[in-house]
Each structure stands twice: as C-alpha cells, then as structure tokens.
C-alpha cells in the first residue's frame, strides 16, 4: 500500500454494556480517503465499534467506554468537544434506511438547518448532495414527495445524501445494503467507491463479496477483538491467521 495518512483511529478500546464486555482492547486505524471494511460474525462488536466514532453510545446509559478515539489530532471524547460537532464531522448511514417522515428536500434540509447553514446556500447544497448520491435525476421533479414512499434503495441513497450534505470528513456505514436488493446494492456500492475520493469511509458488512468490491482495507473482528487487519486483497487471499482464513472462506460465521 502506498503512503497513507491516518484519518481516524481507536486505541486500547474496552467497552461494556452493563457487565458484558463487548470490545476488548481494540486498536484500529482508518486511512484517509479510503474505504475500510469491518467484517466478522454477528455479535463480534463491529457495529458497536463503528458507533463509538460518532458517539452514538452517548444515548445508552449502560455503556461504559475506555480508550482513545482520535479524528486527526482531535480526541473525540474530549470533554471540551461538543457531541454535535463530532457528529457533523463524522456522519453515519444506518443498517435500515431511516429517512425522516418528511419530504425528500426536507430530509436533507433538516441537517442543514440544525447546523446553521445559511438558508440562501441550502438549495444548492441539497441539489449537490442529491447529485453526488446519484439520486438527483430520479427525484428532481418531485422533491416534496414523502421520503417514505421511495424505494428502499432510493431511501438509503437519500440517507447518504443527507450525510454528505453536511460535508463530513468521515462517513460510517453500518451494513448499508443489508436490506436492499442486488440492483440497489450495486448502486450503493458504486456510490461508495465514488465517495471515497472525498471522504474517509468505514463500512460494516456481512457480505464478503461486498468487502472485496468496495474496500481498500479490511479489519476482521471476532468476539470483541481485532483478529487481523490489512490490505483487503491480503485478508481475503492471503490471511495470516487460521481464524481469518476459516471465516473468509465461509467455514463459520
């Protein structure tokens, strides 16, 4: 791999939900403007790890986190950092498309309003975001249409548009295609590959082919620990650990 800049990193992460330890001494790095895939069997902690980076666990009172999360030189859990600022820099796309029960335009406009983007600039930004997520041509004639009446794939691309409209630096994706049909999945994957020119992307996926299609780097997790990380090609074709080999070849998980 060529020279890479570390955009996002986690060091020595331990995370508990109540008494149950979900992440055990996890340390990972994510290179700038690359797609990194987090793979591993269900319950291995990959979504939990992902949600640490935009502090979604702040909402669960029984979560306890140890360790350091860094976005460049910024400690994401620094007491002086506001959580809304973190979430503006680190956007998130969820497993199930979750547009607001509002119109298409309003769905993107909401985040802009929340973040005090001047109202004169908003229409341009919204159009740009819809174009970047390849949704513009499909929806430009009816931007007021309720988002819930779009197809599942369109909804997920709208959620991506909503995220990119805020110009985050990192986009976290939690199994973004798990509820989509193959054609919609293909569109979202193409979009992900396009987006990495501007954004650092971390994607959790259960789909081995998807990881190979979109990711530059792959991290394999098992039972709350990082087993192996490296170049996607190496992880899938030339893994060092026996466990990784068994998982990527489909022997378990």
């Amino acid at each position, binding site marked *: 791999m060529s020279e890479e800049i570390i955009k996002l990193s986690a060091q020595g992460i331990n995370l508990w939900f109540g008494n149950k330890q979900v992440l055990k001494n996890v340390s990972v790095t994510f290179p700038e403007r690359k797609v990194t895939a987090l793979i591993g069997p269900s319950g291995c902690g990959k979504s939990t790890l992902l949600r640490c980076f935009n502090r979604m666990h702040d909402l669960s*009172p029984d979560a306890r986190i140890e360790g350091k999360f860094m976005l460049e030189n910024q400690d994401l859990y620094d007491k002086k950092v506001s959580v*809304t*600022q973190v*979430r503006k820099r680190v956007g998130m796309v*969820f497993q*199930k498309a979750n*547009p*607001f*029960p509002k119109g298409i335009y309003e769905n993107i406009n909401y985040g802009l309003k*929340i973040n005090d983007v001047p109202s004169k600039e908003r229409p341009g930004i919204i159009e740009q975001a819809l174009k970047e997520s390849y949704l513009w041509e499909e929806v430009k004639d009816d931007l007021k249409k309720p988002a819930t009446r779009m197809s599942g794939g369109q909804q997920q691309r709208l959620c991506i548009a909503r995220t990119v409209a805020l110009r985050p630096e990192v986009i976290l994706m939690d199994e973004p295609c798990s509820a989509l049909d193959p054609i919609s999945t293909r569109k979202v994957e193409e979009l992900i590959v396009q987006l990495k020119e501007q954004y650092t992307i971390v994607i959790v996926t259960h789909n081995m082919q998807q990881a190979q299609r979109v990711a530059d780097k792959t991290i394999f997790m098992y039972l709350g620990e990082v087993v192996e990380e490296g170049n996607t090609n190496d992880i899938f074709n030339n893994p060092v650990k026996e466990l990784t080999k068994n998982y990527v070849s489909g022997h378990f998980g």
Partner: protein
Amino acid sequence: MKLAAREAIDRFVKILFRTTGLLVIGILGGIFIMLLWNTVSFFLHIKPLDFFTANQWNPGGHHASYGILPLMVSTSLVTLGAMLIAIPLGIGTAAFMSEYASKRLRNILKPMIEMLAAVPSVAIGFLGIVIVGPEIAKLTHQANGLNALNGAVLLAIMALPTIITVTEDALQALPSTYREASYSVGANRWQTLRKVIIPSAAPGIIAAIMLGVGRAIGETMTVLMATGNASAFPKGFFHSVRTITATIAIEMGEVPYQTTHYYALFAIAAVLFIITLLVNLAGEYFVNRYRKYQAA
C-alpha cells in the same frame, strides 16, 4: 367421551361470549334509541330552533325556556380551559418521560400517573371545594371560587393521565431509528424532540388529546361540585357555570315524569351523546391513521 365433553364446553363458551359481545351492541343501541325517542317527544313540545337559539335554560313554570345554548357554552368553556392547561402539561410530561427521564424515574412516574386516573371524581370534587376554589377566590377577590376556572383546573387534572399515557405510548412506539437519524446529523435532544419526534407522533398525540377532551366533556360529579351551577348565561372563566352533565344530574331526580322538562333533559343528553361520540370517533380515526403509518 372426553372429546365430546370438551367440544360441548367449547360450543357453550363460544355462545356465551358471543352473547356478551352482542349485548354490548344491544345496550349501546338501546341507550341511543331511548335518548332519541324522548328527544323526539321533546321536540313535539318545543321547536328545535328555540332549543338551539334561546339563551336561557329556565325549565318549569309559566315562562319556561329550554335553551341549550348556555349549557353548551358552559361545557365548552370548562372543557376548553381544561385542555389549555392539560395539553401542554400532558405533552411536556410525556416527552420528558419518553426522552429525558432515566429508566428508573420513568418506572416510578408511569404507574403513579396511571394511579391518578383511578382517583374517584368525587374526591377530585372535594379538592375543588376545599383547595382550588378558595385559592381562586383569594386570588381574584371574589366571595367564592366555584366557577368555570375551578372546573377547568380539576378536569385538567382528570384528563392528564389519559393524555400523558397515550402520548407517551405514541412517542415510545416511534422507531429508535428516527432518533438516531436526527442525532447523527448533529441535532440535540430538544431539536430532535421538537422537529422529528413530536411531528412524527402527531396522530397519536391528537388521539390522546381527543380522548382527553372526551373525558372532560362527559365528566359530571367534579363540575357539579366545583362550578357553582348558576343558571345565568355564562360570562367567563371567573363566573359560575352550569354544564350539560351537571344540569342533568341536578334536575333529573326532581323532575315530574313525562313533562316537557323531563323530555328536555333527554334532549340535552342526546346532544351530549352526539358530541362525545364525534370526539371519540375523531380520536379513533387518528389512532388508526397512526397505526397504519407505523406499519409503513
């Protein structure tokens, strides 16, 4: 042998509960027909136009007047006042319980609020006579506090549990993905609550309000005890009023059988019945819309 017995029990139980079900429909229909029948008898004596436009309720005697208007205005005044108090408090409390309160606090608050609904209306009436009434009298420098405001405060207390519980259920029923979506674009709790959660739960909240209104309109004992029951045309919140329910409760015991006055009470009861029916239908409509929306 055993099988035959089991099937016989099964048949019996089925017939028994079908009868109960049909009985409910029968009773509802019976009440409606009774009200309608007596109302028709009333309109044989008094013109409907007079009933709805006369501005005095003064039954019996030579100059009897059966205008429902003052009673309707009284009922509306008390209900409106109650809702002005109960809606903001109820939605606010529900939002606090659903979005801000810790699990422990919520588990204490929720049963407490539900218990408030179990307090008998007579006991709430006491509250009006002993505490709320005198306080209102003191604040407004009146001889007594038995007026529309007193009734409104008490009805608000009685409608609160319904509004809080139904609203809270509506907020809780929203998928957590809405909250996550909003937080993920950088919104804080208050923005999320105001711009995403409450609008999304609006049909459920409207249903809660409708149920609260229904509770307030039909309540009898509390307003009877707290509002003074003056039969003059109501002038405002600080004057004594006499609601439809209170009028029926006061006069039904003393009215001579099958007189115009007797029929008149049925007529105003029919009006009340229609109002509460409409309010409940509206509530039901919104609850259903809310369910459909949830499924989507």
